[in-house]
């Protein structure tokens, strides 16, 4: 269990002769709102938390170690399980890491297919995130409405790669399948229906008075704190830092697309509060729709996958690449010794650092706020442990 010695003075006056003691609560591993198998040891004074200590390791599946046994091609399905809520970006991270090891050029149509798949994956992941946040705050309806749309995205991705959750779509050197006939029309039809729905969600929940009261001004993360604790992705952008790997360290064909990087503005309180983090995801879905429209419209002709040897043996060396996953900057580190199996793989994920900052943020909040904090940080348990 991680323990840091952070104590805060939350002293209360008690009448003489009455003794009070701190209550230790185990939130999780089985708890309805811990999004998978997380555990927090909550030290609480009634409803007020002194601190919540995250405890990780409940979902460790040795994914990094497995890569050393299954080889470069064989590891692709395992990357789906790193962050199963948005598996596409994990696919992409691994593929790019291997390609940069071996110096493989991906065909442009392959890159476009990847971008389309990834952006659909990002929308699907953010839908889960915003829906689950609303559900944790107590509103069930936005969650079902978000899942309804996510199902449609799953249908689209199923058309693309035959799977709905763990896609295994990308290959070293491109993608497994080309875009099926009629896909562009159906994907565009979905985007046409989905974009007005984002505004509908905003009407339904984002600007609801109770919701903004619950999310606004809760656990604000300043830009300095966010950088110090290594927050990435929407959590970092929620704190007002305009940093997106797709823009700042471009990979794939992202520089060819025109899109904005939404940041938290503190509309409902301080910059970097839960509501900002939530809203950044809402806005990012719109941006993803923009990218998708451009990618679907400008799809080049050609093959989707480069010729890569079946026994992929990259030259000796190492590579570290970063992709913008749904939970932010995802780092893929791979060391090759020239054989068909990597020597070492490491994956840097956004949820891991987001989990750590909970301990700092939780001090002095109420127990109900902890739920909002976890939800707004969008922690996905398997991504924490891998």
């Amino acid at each position, binding site marked *: 269990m991680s323990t840091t010695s952070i104590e805060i003075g939350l002293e209360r006056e008690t009448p003489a002769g009455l003794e009070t003691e701190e*209550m230790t*609560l185990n939130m999780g591993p089985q*708890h*309805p*709102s811990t999004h998978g198998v997380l555990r927090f040891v909550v030290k609480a004074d009634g*409803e007020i938390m002194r601190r919540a200590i995250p405890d990780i390791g409940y979902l460790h599946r040795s994914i990094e170690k497995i890569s050393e046994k299954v080889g470069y091609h064989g590891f692709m399905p395992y990357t789906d399980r790193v962050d199963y809520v948005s598996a596409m970006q994990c696919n992409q991270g691994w593929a790019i890491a291997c390609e940069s090891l071996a110096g493989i050029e991906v065909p442009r149509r392959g890159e476009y297919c990847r971008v389309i798949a990834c952006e659909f994956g990002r929308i699907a992941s953010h839908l889960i995130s915003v829906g689950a946040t*609303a*559900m*944790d*705050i*107590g*509103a*069930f*309806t936005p969650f*079902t*409405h978000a899942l*309804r749309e996510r199902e449609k995205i799953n249908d689209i991705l199923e058309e693309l790669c035959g799977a709905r959750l763990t896609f295994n779509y990308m290959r070293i050197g491109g993608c497994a399948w080309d875009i099926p006939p009629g896909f562009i029309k159906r994907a565009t039809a979905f985007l046409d*229906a989905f974009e007005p729905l984002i505004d509908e969600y905003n009407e*339904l*929940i984002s600007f*609801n008075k*109770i*919701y903004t*009261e*619950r999310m606004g001004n809760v656990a604000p993360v300043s830009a300095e704190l966010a950088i110090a604790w290594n927050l990435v992705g929407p959590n970092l952008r929620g704190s007002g830092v305009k940093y997106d790997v797709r823009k700042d360290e471009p990979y794939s064909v992202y520089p060819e697309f025109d899109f904005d990087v939404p940041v938290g503005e503190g509309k409902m309180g301080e910059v970097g509060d839960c509501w900002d983090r939530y809203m950044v995801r809402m806005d990012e879905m719109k941006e993803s729709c923009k990218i998708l429209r451009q990618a679907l419209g400008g799809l080049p002709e050609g093959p989707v996958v480069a010729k890569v040897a079946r026994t992929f043996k990259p030259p000796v060396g190492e590579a570290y690449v970063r992709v913008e996953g749904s939970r932010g900057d995802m780092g893929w580190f791979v060391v090759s010794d020239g054989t068909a199996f990597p020597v070492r793989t490491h994956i840097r994920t956004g949820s891991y650092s987001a989990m750590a900052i909970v301990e700092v943020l939780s001090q002095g909040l*109420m*127990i*109900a*706020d902890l*739920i909002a904090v976890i939800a707004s940080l969008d922690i996905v348990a398997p991504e924490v442990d891998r």
Partner: protein
Amino acid sequence: MRKFADSLLNGGIFDGMPIELGYVLVVAFFAFVLLNFIMLVAGVTSWLERRVWGRIQSRIGPNRVGPQGTIQWLADGLKNIMKEDIIPEEADAPLFKIAPYLAMMGFFATFAVIPFGDGLVVADLDVGLLYITAVTALVVVGVLMAGWASNNKWALLGGIRSAAQIISYEIPAGLGVITVVLFTGSLSMQSIIRAQGWEPWNWFMFDNPFLFVAFFLFFVSALAEGNRTPFDLPEAESELVAGAFTEYSGLRNLLFFLVEWGNLYVIGALCATMFLGGWQIPPVTENPFLLGLLQFITFFAKSYFIVFVAMWIRGTLPRVRVDQLMTLCWKYLTPIAFVNLLGAMIWFIVFPHGFLPMRIAMVLIGGGIFLYFLSRVMFHLRRAKPEMHLSPLA
């Protein structure tokens, strides 16, 4: 009902036994009928809630057991009864066992004074409203006891939240009730209904602006007292697992749910009684049986409208936080209720017999708002149509 009881007593069935025993038997008979009625109401409400909720959430809801899933509640109830009744080893067993029955008693007792028709009330107590306020407090005892006896920290938090919440919201609810009592001069449920008429402008809700405000004060506070969204903190499933009911299973858990859904109906019935004219119907028939039936249907429809609104709210709103809950009660609702009461007093002095133009204006405004709202709902429904692949009656 009293007459009916007397006729039963003197009807010759109980000849040859002491009169006290006869009374006990008659009361037991009424209680039996009422208990079955309540089970039915709570069960149907649970089914309706799940269907309405499903419709709001663009899914179907239970539709397998019976036509349209109408007896789903029966299947759920049977399942719960047959489940093992787990009592945790560390729990305070006697309290743990008793708690659901206390909560159940608290809400069951309210049905004794709910007037379903002109003569259709078990006991038209002179202190009807006061009695309801008093017995519903038993529910909080039950919930608090459940939370404490479970020996579970989540349950304890839930129980304490429940106690704090219900006791706080008794005040604005009580003040809302007092505003009505001010205009009737009686706490009896039947005389409150008799003071109103069947026409909407003779309902207390539209009598004057202060009663209109009192309706909303009462409705909001009643939602909080019934642990309904947005005030469902005691069992906030995303925070406290299941709050005070975390450790309960089987029949005891079922009883708590029964209380929740039954309480929903009680809220509706109270609103209908105090503000919506209760069972008042236009004089259409002389037949006492038909009259009673029509009154019953009217009352039921009115109270179920309120129940429907509460379901709607549950499908739309998130949950407030504990401190916000208390802020809302003590900083907003209670002062507003006091000012409102004062205003109602002044109004009563100025217009002791009511002020018809104001009533008609209020009905027109209220009806206008309602129609506008309805048109918005229809607009959204029509717009959502291509999106729906589910028929509402699928």
